[in-house]
């Protein structure tokens, strides 16, 4: 009769003095798990290590220097060339949308950069809010293909009679020049 553990019994076991059949010691029962076989263990290890390796690679490549502020990007302009990178700054009060493009300026540490964005900005995009843009230098402006809003850690209840804070007005400073 089969046991729960599937243990084989032999009928050739010699009888003992009292008539009982000697039974060899039973092997320990093992709980069968999905990762019970070496092949599956190796497969799981490869998948997990691969995932971790990918995350570490992505992390080392992107996370530690996630963006350059507008002033840093202007300072590093020569070395950046037309390479893709992220730039951070606060949107000025000069947002214009036309022909599927959004034209605006950002500033950081008294440096202003003109931006032309080719995609639709996110819903929280507005003057006075910090943004991180992905794109590259293109002549006198930063050509952005992704706008991400970088909201602060501060929260305030919205009141119907609250006045919206005014963003600094746009200056006539050329792209990459000193801002207000």
């Amino acid at each position, binding site marked *: 009769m089969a*046991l729960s553990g599937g243990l084989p019994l032999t009928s050739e076991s010699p*009888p003992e003095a009292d008539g*009982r059949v000697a*039974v060899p010691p*039973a092997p320990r029962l093992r709980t069968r798990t999905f990762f019970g076989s070496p092949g599956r263990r190796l497969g799981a290890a490869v998948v997990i290590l691969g995932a971790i390796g990918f995350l570490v690679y992505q992390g080392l490549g992107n996370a530690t220097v996630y963006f350059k502020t507008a002033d840093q990007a202007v300072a590093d302009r020569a070395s950046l060339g037309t390479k893709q990178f992220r730039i951070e700054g606060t949107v000025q009060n000069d947002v214009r949308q036309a022909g599927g493009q959004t034209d605006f300026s950002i500033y950081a540490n008294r440096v202003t950069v003109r931006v032309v964005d080719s995609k639709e900005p996110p*819903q929280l995009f507005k003057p006075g809010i910090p943004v991180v843009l992905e794109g590259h230098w293109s002549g006198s402006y930063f050509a952005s293909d*992704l706008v991400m809003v970088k909201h602060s850690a501060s*929260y305030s209840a919205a*009141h119907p009679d609250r006045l919206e804070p005014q963003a600094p007005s746009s200056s006539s400073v050329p792209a990459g020049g000193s801002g207000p």
Partner: protein
Amino acid sequence: MAVSSVSVLPARVAPVGAAPRAGTGNSVTKVLGVASIVSLALTAWLGLDVSPPDVTQGELVRLIYVHPAAATVCYVGFGLCALASLAYLWPRTRSRRWDRLAAASAEVGVVFCAVTLITGSIWGRGSWGVWWTWDARLTLTALLFAVFVGYLALRRTGGDPEARAKRSAVVAILCALLVPVDHYATSWWTTLHQGNTLTRANPLIHGMQLYTMLLSFLAFGLLFAWLLVHRYRVEVLEDRYEEEGFAAAIAERRAEGVPG
């Protein structure tokens, strides 16, 4: 021989020939469960109906009553896993109960880490404009999730229970080193993710928003404790299954050796 007929436990954990109380609940878990559900319902009501929208984020701010609490509880789970693992490795405190606690807290922590990643992604799509980006906080949280899933897989590799518990404990402590790095990522590196709102001298949230957020931490903490107790007791039942199943199998086998 009736393996299944004597089972009053769930199929996976049923010992043969024994019928001890097999559930994972008692009066404490009932209280914890009710308290979790009530506090979660209260958080939902305050968060969705009573607390005001945010001046910048509008209605999106309501995710602050889920996401930070889930992330904090996830940290607690992984931290508890590391402490229990340390207690298991320490010869004076070595006990199977610490290994069970490490397993249970890691598993519940992984669940809350998944909730953190999902709610964060939804919040990011609404506020930042993207579902995902590789900044330090997000990358490290994803890494934390991956390494603890790996830890749980390691626990399922079988073999000698004591050796498995030891190697799992070492891996848990190594994995948990990521927790403080993840927490301070927004301070140490430039990130798209915002910095800390509460853990500073002057919190950057006030009034009903603050009270609702604090309540969400309490609600998620209770939920974590509730799940943890149940999961720990499942570990106990699994151990009992292995021990009693082994003893019962030997007894059955010897009984089958008796002729007639």
